[in-house]
């Protein structure tokens, strides 16, 4: 196995770039750069491609196939694959439930699930949020009642990304109503083909389909699909989120957006002059680029501190999430504005992702811009809304 620890950051980056240029088909990169929703065939193919060199699971322990990258190397990898237009790996299996199974799964769970997650053969959805448990996730009510060797699950999950083409879902379910609400939650793995499960699409304001509602009616799940101990699920879920504490910074997306804004502004001509040459536009772009520079430097600080084993008292994951997501939205707003009227047509994903209609309106560099802009309103809502993040930040500050 390659010893990545001996590599400089530049060498590592070059290695990733070389791999991408050898393996990523240009037409796939072109469609992913439009920034529509994930497209399963591409995702599965790219996951298996990465798995061949052990790169599909950068965050996993070495004994389960992780490449033992540093946190800095993981960020470099993420940035390079994103900017090159590689298909976005589905995080639910690879970065969320995978590490949980590595740490808490039974030998049978590990043997069955981990290879299939690594290779992309099985895709996962995350069943956490419910209609009445969003920001207040621990209020979840989807019940799992033990009945012999099985759990019987009843309830509803919502905002379930990619459930419509996933094979499995990992769930937080209520197994007890006694004590604190966090203490009665368990972590359960469910095959989405099990009878009693209904998946309904939620179409988002971009016209796309990534989100779903999932209904469970007397769904019988083998008790062997429980992860770890009953009523300890909240702890596992928290650890799972803590593992990924620096990966919600979105710096790779900001860099891609800045690049795309500049490309668009070179093409947009206002009264005959490229928008990119307009001093007022340049200043607004400069302002955002400066914000990204500062934000990226915060990410570097946090990564360096993590690698040195310093976990400061500061609520850094929340800072990265709040600023990172808000910058994505501000950059998206400048991008759509830079398109002028060419940004207005509805470039529907089903018409523009794989193909292009005859005689399309607007311009090709506009495809996907408004869709992405619309869908990214969700960034400041999911994963703990930015208001909840601010509560967390202030709570830590005022306690110290």
């Amino acid at each position: 196995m390659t010893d990545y620890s001996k590599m400089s950051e530049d060498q590592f980056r070059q290695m990733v770039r070389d791999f991408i240029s050898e393996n990523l088909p240009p037409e796939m990169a072109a469609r992913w750069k439009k920034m529509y929703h994930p497209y399963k065939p591409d995702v599965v193919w790219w996951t298996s491609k990465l798995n061949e060199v052990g790169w599909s699971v950068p965050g996993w322990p070495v004994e389960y196939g992780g490449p033992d990258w540093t946190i800095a190397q993981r960020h470099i990898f993420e940035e390079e694959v994103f900017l090159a237009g590689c298909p976005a790996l589905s995080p639910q299996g690879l970065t969320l439930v995978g590490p949980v199974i590595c740490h808490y799964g039974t030998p049978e769970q590990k043997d069955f699930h981990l290879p299939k997650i690594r290779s992309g053969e099985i895709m996962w959805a995350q069943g956490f949020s419910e209609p009445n448990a969003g920001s207040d996730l621990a209020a979840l009510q989807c019940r799992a009642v033990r009945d012999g060797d099985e759990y019987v699950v009843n309830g509803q999950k919502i905002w379930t990304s990619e459930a419509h083409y996933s094979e499995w879902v990992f769930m937080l379910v209520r197994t007890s109503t006694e004590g604190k609400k966090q203490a009665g939650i368990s972590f359960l793995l469910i095959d989405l083909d099990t009878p009693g499960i209904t998946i309904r699409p939620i179409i988002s304001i971009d016209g796309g389909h990534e989100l779903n509602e999932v209904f469970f009616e007397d769904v019988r799940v083998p008790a062997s699909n429980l992860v770890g101990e009953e009523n300890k699920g909240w702890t596992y879920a928290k650890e799972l989120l803590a593992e990924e504490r620096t990966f919600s910074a979105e710096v790779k997306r900001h860099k891609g957006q800045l690049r795309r804004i500049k490309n668009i502004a070179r093409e947009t001509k206002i009264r005959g002059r490229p928008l990119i040459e307009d001093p007022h536009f340049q200043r607004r772009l400069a302002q955002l680029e400066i914000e990204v520079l500062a934000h990226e430097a915060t990410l570097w600080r946090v990564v360096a501190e993590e690698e040195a084993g310093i976990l400061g008292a500061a609520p850094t994951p929340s800072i990265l999430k709040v600023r990172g997501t808000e910058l994505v939205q501000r950059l998206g707003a400048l991008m759509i504005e830079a398109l002028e009227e060419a940004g207005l047509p509805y470039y529907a994903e089903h018409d523009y992702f794989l193909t292009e209609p005859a005689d399309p309106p607007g311009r090709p560099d506009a495809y996907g811009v408004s869709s992405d802009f619309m869908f990214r309103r969700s960034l400041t809502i999911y994963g703990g809304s930015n208001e909840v993040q601010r509560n967390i930040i202030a709570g830590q500050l005022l306690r110290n």
Partner: protein
Amino acid sequence: MGMKVLPTEEQVMFRDAAARWVEQEAGSGADMAAQWGQFAELGWLMVAIPEDQGGLDGNVYDNAIIAEELGKGLVAAPYVGVAVTATQLLLALAPERAEAVASGEEIPLVAHVEAGQGGDPSWVETTATQAGDGWSLTGTKTAIIGAPLATSFLVSARTPDGKIGLFEVAADAAKVREYLLFDMRPAGDLVLDATPATLISSDALSAIEFALDCEHVVESAEAVGVMQTAFDLTKDYLNTRQQYGQLIGQFQALQHRLADMFIELEQARSVVLRGLDALVRNGPDRSAMAAACRVKVAQAGHFVGAQGIQLHGGIGVTEEYPVGHHFRQLIAFEMRHGGAGAQVERYASMMEL
């Protein structure tokens, strides 16, 4: 990601020493000249000077660590102006002079900024003409922080061949119009009217640009210190002040404001590290990063200072209470070198398009 983040052991020592000095000495009533002697004794003026020129062989990181602590205590003595801007300029153009600055014997200040410069280091209207064996300068240099303390000024001026030269004018040989800035720091204008001057370099622009980039970043570090105290005061106030029968820190509107202040403070701290990294690498992005640093810290400082006052309520606008003093110095920082708006424009002119 190769940016240096964690301080060395030596830098931690400097930081602790500077913090102690600010706590014990800064408010002791000693005048600026006495304070300057202490800076020299503590070695703070020589941190960035190479060993063979009598210095401690460090770099601008060490300056930044000290400047941040001085900022926390709103120390008015022109540490950055002398130990960074003037020292870097001399190291580039007259390195043999650095030792006398390090010892505190000489206190040169850079006189470069002119009204209407807009943050562009190459816009110099002061003129230099040859007079016999020497030179004489005409023009006005403005807003020189710490001017009353200076023993001499390092003055940029345009020479007859159109280049920007660097000259030295002794403080007692020139007219210095002394005044206070609105943050109460002593400052002054250097009013030159065929004033005799000594030539240091006849082609100094790139050295001036480097020294000013250092000033942008280290002054930003100082401003982060100013901001940190404003933030700490505000946080403590939210934890002590009661209204409507509860601590005001229990109101969510104020909690969220505090969270936003903290985010801005941390972004400012990060961008300073990035600016320092750019100075040490001295690559093609150096000036752009220095400008970005100044912009981000200035805007963050404005926000943190202003919200610090707002969250204090009435006491925040009183002379008696310190949070407003921090706001004043942050606004002064924002307004220097053409103001943050001009620096955004400067960044835009250097940005990769």
